[in-house]
């Protein structure tokens, strides 16, 4: 019985050693890390591109919305402007709009500086 157990143990030990030798873990292929970093860089570029396109769409939508609101505002306020400023109303309205536009441009410039990838 003891001898049988011992044979079994020897067989198990031999199988263990043979499997350890045969099933050695594969090493990483050469250049694996470099390719990973390149893929990471490509992914970052892709994300930046997507973000950039999204930003442009948002800018366009904002511009359209501002133009619409400005037009509606001027149309609504025109009677009051004419009443208050008389003949100068034609200059005051574009002046106010120009100030708003400069404010928006400054805001956009500041936001652009904040965007870092």
């Amino acid at each position, binding site marked *: 019985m003891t001898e049988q157990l011992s*044979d079994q143990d*020897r*067989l*198990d030990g*031999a*199988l*263990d*050693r*043979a*499997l*350890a*030798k*045969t*099933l*050695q*873990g*594969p*090493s*990483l*292929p050469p250049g*694996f*890390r470099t*390719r*990973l970093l390149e*893929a*990471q860089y490509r*992914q970052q570029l892709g994300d930046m591109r997507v973000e950039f396109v999204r930003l442009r769409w948002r800018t366009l939508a904002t511009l359209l919305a501002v133009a619409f609101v400005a037009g509606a505002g001027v149309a609504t306020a025109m009677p009051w402007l004419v009443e208050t400023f008389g003949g100068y109303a034609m200059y005051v309205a574009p002046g106010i709009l120009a100030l708003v536009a400069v404010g928006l441009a400054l805001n956009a410039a500041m936001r652009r500086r904040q965007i870092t990838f």
Partner: protein
Amino acid sequence: MPDALERDQDIVQLIERGDTEAAFGRLVDRYEQKVYRLCCGLLRDRVLAEDSAQESLLRIWKSLAKYDARAALSTWIYTIARNRCLTALERRQVGESLIQRDAGGQLDHAAAAANPEPMAASTSLRALVDGLPERYRQALTLFYFEERSVGEAGAMLGLPDGTVKTNLARGRALLLERMSQLGLSDPLLWLEEAT
């Protein structure tokens, strides 16, 4: 030996501090080899395994900020890698062809192992392991890939340690059974030759 949670505490702390780049660098140093080996063990195709390992690491990098430390980092990493491998298998419809290849492959493996003399013993043993049912083959392969660690193989396969131990024992028993079926009257001699 520290458990999985303790071992990766440094990486988890970096993630919590928001330093995902440093965390990812350390994670790659520690896990790139293991992820690649897991992919090799599951896919049995080195090229596909490399692609899947790269995709897994990229996905990990993108999701690193979302890691919530509910599971051990290693478990989370291996789950992502395993899912990538499954996707790779599905994408290329290898699932079906694997079954076919296994059916044919087992015959090839048996034939290759049946005549061990002309072939190196280790090659024949490899063929026998390749011919084992998938769950036994995976358990054996990953166990020896990770220097005989049941815990690591279990984490890689998403299985409890007990199941891995059972699969290892059954796989080894099946290997010995197939050796004797192949007429290896004294497998011990043959195994000693393989070492």
